[in-house]
């Protein structure tokens, strides 16, 4: 049997005082079912609270690195109070030698196998985060590149297990990207006119393999491209454009070391490598008065992606735009992402940028003022200037799918029920299928109005109208 820790040794493992305190009531024998131990581990099922017991196992076999923990409770603390409680129970002599429970045996076997694989034994075996639910945000976070998860190395030490997982993941991604690129070349070889391109299953299979390769954002992109097939007479051009950009991304992602740092970061994020929230929040912030200019939502599989556009800048530009992303499950009641920031409000705050070729996606850091209703819209530009700005952004990140703009423009009919926004510098079409053009026309009365929208290759998606001192979300 493994050396029994003392009571104080166990408490010294607690991540904070609260966890240590909470562990003591957990350590009563009555709270545990099938608790057992052997030479290298201790395990048990914590049954005191919920209907589903928590499966707790602790690997004690690593003498140098200290214990590693597994518990399927939702706590983010490592070790959680259940793991500490079980160790306390062990320290108090409350755990008898036994055969490993199946879940514990499986987990310990996996750990042993990965230890055998690792070239060097980790000097510090930091906790292996295997709490259930830990990975859930992952694939969807990649929906737009990087659903961030906070790192677990609270002490600032690099977690070798985490590093190893990252390496494994990037290997999987590399294989996925190669497969994507082969697939793209195959389509070009047989031609876009071939019937299989019109078959949704062709695309679905590719998307599924990209999901397996943990390139979630590319998988979603593939699905979006699939919807463009046959959409109008010149769909071949749209699809070729998208395929070419995905090719650029796939090639770029396989040789990021040869790219400039910012571009490499952008490629990583666009292909689905996640960036830890804490790393982003550790960057130097941009502090300004931000106007909540608009909000858009798209559905990607079972996930609703919500983009909140913040704008800052002097009244006559240049505007700084920031995009906050939020994700929600798409359930029976429709949209479950709540509107966190009221459109048209403004606040002083720190914004931290995600790494990449351009500053766009960001996290909200410290608020310096309470959100207040703001009568003024973001700085307005001409359509030509807005497109130029979007063009520069696209030059920085060619795979960018949307970019915000705020223009003073009048709606003008294109025929067939399609409309454009027009000013003296030209016009840009409103995306097809946008259902609320009538509101824009009605508010404008034919005259220019201030409007925030999203540029995309299909045109502009209007998001917010600013009229008579009011922001009207569309």
């Amino acid at each position, binding site marked *: 049997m493994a050396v029994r820790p003392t009571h104080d040794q166990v408490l010294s493992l607690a991540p904070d005082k609260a966890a240590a305190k909470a562990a003591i009531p957990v350590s009563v024998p009555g709270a545990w079912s099938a608790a057992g131990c052997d030479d290298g581990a201790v395990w048990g099922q914590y049954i005191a609270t919920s209907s589903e017991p928590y499966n707790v196992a602790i690997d004690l076999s690593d003498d140098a690195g200290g214990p590693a923990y597994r518990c399927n409770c939702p706590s983010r603390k490592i070790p959680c109070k259940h793991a500490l409680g079980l160790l306390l129970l062990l320290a108090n002599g409350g755990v008898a030698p036994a055969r490993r429970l199946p879940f514990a045996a499986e987990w310990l076997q996996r750990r042993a196998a990965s230890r055998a694989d690792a070239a060097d034994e980790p000097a510090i075996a930091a906790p292996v985060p295997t709490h259930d639910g830990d990975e859930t945000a992952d694939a969807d976070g990649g929906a737009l590149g990087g659903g961030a998860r906070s790192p677990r190395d609270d002490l600032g030490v690099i977690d070798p297990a985490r590093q190893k997982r990252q390496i494994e993941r990037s290997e999987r991604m590399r294989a996925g990207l190669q497969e994507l*690129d082969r697939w*793209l*070349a*195959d389509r*070009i*070889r*047989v*031609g*876009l*006119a*071939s019937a299989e391109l019109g078959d949704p299953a062709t695309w679905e299979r590719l998307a599924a393999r990209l999901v397996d390769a943990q390139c979630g954002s590319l998988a979603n992109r593939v699905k979006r491209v699939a919807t463009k097939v046959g959409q109008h007479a010149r769909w*071949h*051009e749209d699809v*070729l*454009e998208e*395929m*070419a*950009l995905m*090719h*650029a991304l796939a*090639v770029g992602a396989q040789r990021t070391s040869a790219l400039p740092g910012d571009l490499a970061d952008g490629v990583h994020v666009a292909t689905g490598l996640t960036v830890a929230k804490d790393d982003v929040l550790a960057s130097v912030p941009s502090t300004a008065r931000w106007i909540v200019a608009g909000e858009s939502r798209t559905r990607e599989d079972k996930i609703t992606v919500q983009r909140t556009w913040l704008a800052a800048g002097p009244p006559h530009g240049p505007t700084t735009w920031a995009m906050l992303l939020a994700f929600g499950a798409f359930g029976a009641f429709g949209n479950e992402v709540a509107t966190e920031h009221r459109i048209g409000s403004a606040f002083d705050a720190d914004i931290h940028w995600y790494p990449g070729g351009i500053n766009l996606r960001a996290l909200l850091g410290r608020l310096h003022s309470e959100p207040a209703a703001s009568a003024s819209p973001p700085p307005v530009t001409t*359509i*030509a200037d807005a*497109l130029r700005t*979007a*063009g*520069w952004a*696209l*030059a920085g990140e*060619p795979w960018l799918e949307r970019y915000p703009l705020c223009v003073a423009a*009048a*709606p*003008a*009919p*294109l025929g067939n*029920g399609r409309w*454009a926004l*027009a*000013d003296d*510098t*030209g*016009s*840009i*079409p409103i995306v097809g299928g946008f259902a*609320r*053009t*009538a*509101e824009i*026309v*009605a*508010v404008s*009365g*034919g*005259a220019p109005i201030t409007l925030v929208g999203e540029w995309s*290759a299909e045109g502009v998606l209007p998001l917010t*109208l600013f*009229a*008579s001192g*009011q922001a*009207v979300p569309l």
Partner: protein
Amino acid sequence: MTAAGPPSVSAGQALASSASHEWSNLVTTAVLGTDRKRLPIPPPGWESLRSADDPAVELLNRAAAVATARRAGMQPVPAPLRIESAPADERPECSTAAANLLARMLGGLHDTVLPEWFALGAMGGVRPPSYLIPALLLRGRRNPAFDLVARSAIGPRASWLADAMPELGVRVVAKSPPAGADPFLPPRPHADSAAVVSVIVQMFLDRSASWAAVAQLRLAVAAMDPSWLAALSLELNRAPFHSATERTRVELTGLTQIRREMIAALAPSESAGPVV
């Protein structure tokens, strides 16, 4: 993969025209497939920066460069003909509070008192907010009596929008409600609102205020003299709980509240105090 360095204007124009040439070459080849069609040699300025043995990869490389240039270099298209401006309307838009109430009622919440919104708005000389015009006109398609009232509240912008957007299908205007249809007006006020309040209270006491009676009760609340609404709110709050009447109680409480808010929001003078 784009051309290096910022080109001069004329060089840029030359590049733009060769870009469209290159793009149409690439599209044609991609549609047929590189197995069947040879990839043409790129025009000057579009030589691939990465050579590839595989013509399909070569095509994708070149297409990525042109696609990036096309997107990053996009220009506004010449503006289509604009629509005529809407005729002027001297009446101001209603307050934000009144607009929000109208939007909620158009969404189906307590629309029993919707006619009163228009009556109060007309008295106060205000019009609905422009962003609600499409919703009002579309609702009018199903209800000619409502359409008459809504168009008169909207003013000249109603027929202007109908003409500017024929796709809405709201051009046809009935001159009068069809024979036999009720005009879209608030109900005539009760002569004795105090009695109505006590009847409602009694209905909650003897549990006859079930959901079956709700339509009738809604109309009673809509027709009550406004000065009695505060008292009704109080009585509804105090009504004894019973599962058979609770849903009705919640409904009438909401209706009373929205009617009070509406009267306050559309009051012609600022003297009207806030709803407590």
